[in-house]
């Protein structure tokens, strides 16, 4: 994964998906929580490439930086949900705006990491990313996050 990220070799990166889902990497998926997140990241990047969006792994030349980006984004999402203080939320908003993610990443991360967000959370995210997400992106985001 390190080499694929360094070389921006998306073909190699996407080969990891079946490797984790069904191949030799499945054992790690079953027993190592971190693998679940890595698979989630791969799904995100795959979707982003399909829709010609800036991939989540942009500016991440190693597994370490990619992991850091995922976790810091997740922490920021949680701070928005839990609203410990004004400063906590401000720091989260600042981070998210400085390190924008796609609407696919926002949706998949919120769902996959069981943040159990409410409508307010999704609307807050859309507001934070007003400058980053296009109109079609926002519509798709709200369609994906619409309660069943």
């Amino acid at each position, binding site marked *: 994964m390190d080499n694929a990220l360094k070389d921006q070799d998306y073909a190699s990166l996407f080969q990891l998906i079946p490797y984790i889902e069904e191949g030799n990497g499945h054992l790690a998926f079953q027993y190592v929580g971190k693998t679940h997140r890595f698979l989630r990241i791969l799904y995100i990047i795959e979707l982003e490439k399909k829709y010609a969006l800036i991939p989540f792994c942009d500016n991440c030349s190693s597994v370490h930086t990619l992991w*850091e980006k995922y*976790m*810091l984004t997740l*922490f920021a999402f*949680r*701070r928005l949900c*839990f609203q*410990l*203080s004004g400063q*906590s939320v401000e720091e989260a908003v600042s981070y998210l705006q400085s390190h924008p993610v796609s609407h696919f990443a926002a949706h998949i991360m919120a769902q996959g990491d069981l943040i159990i967000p409410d409508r307010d959370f999704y609307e807050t995210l859309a507001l934070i990313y007003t400058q980053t997400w296009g109109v079609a992106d926002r519509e798709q985001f709200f369609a994906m996050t619409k309660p069943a």
Partner: protein
Amino acid sequence: MDNHKFAIIICANDDLLLKECRHYIDHLVIPEGYNTELFTVREAASMTRGYNEAMLASDAKYKIYIHQDVFILNRYILEDLLSVFAASPPNRNGWLRKCFS
């Protein structure tokens, strides 16, 4: 023993997680008349050994042991814990009943 002190003991090996864990701890409401101290256990031979070393290093009456990936959401947990201990007789069963009621 300091009866008005909480020691929060964190076992950690990841700075990213530890920093976020501490962010939530920093937002805890500290009951009036009480204070807190934080211990971060790193590079312990095992988690239990790490916790034991910190336990012995602190004179706090109340010791809270958490891992680096625990983020305490309830800002009033320290007050809640004091209420639990005050309401229940000082025996394990009473405390457990209260916690899960």
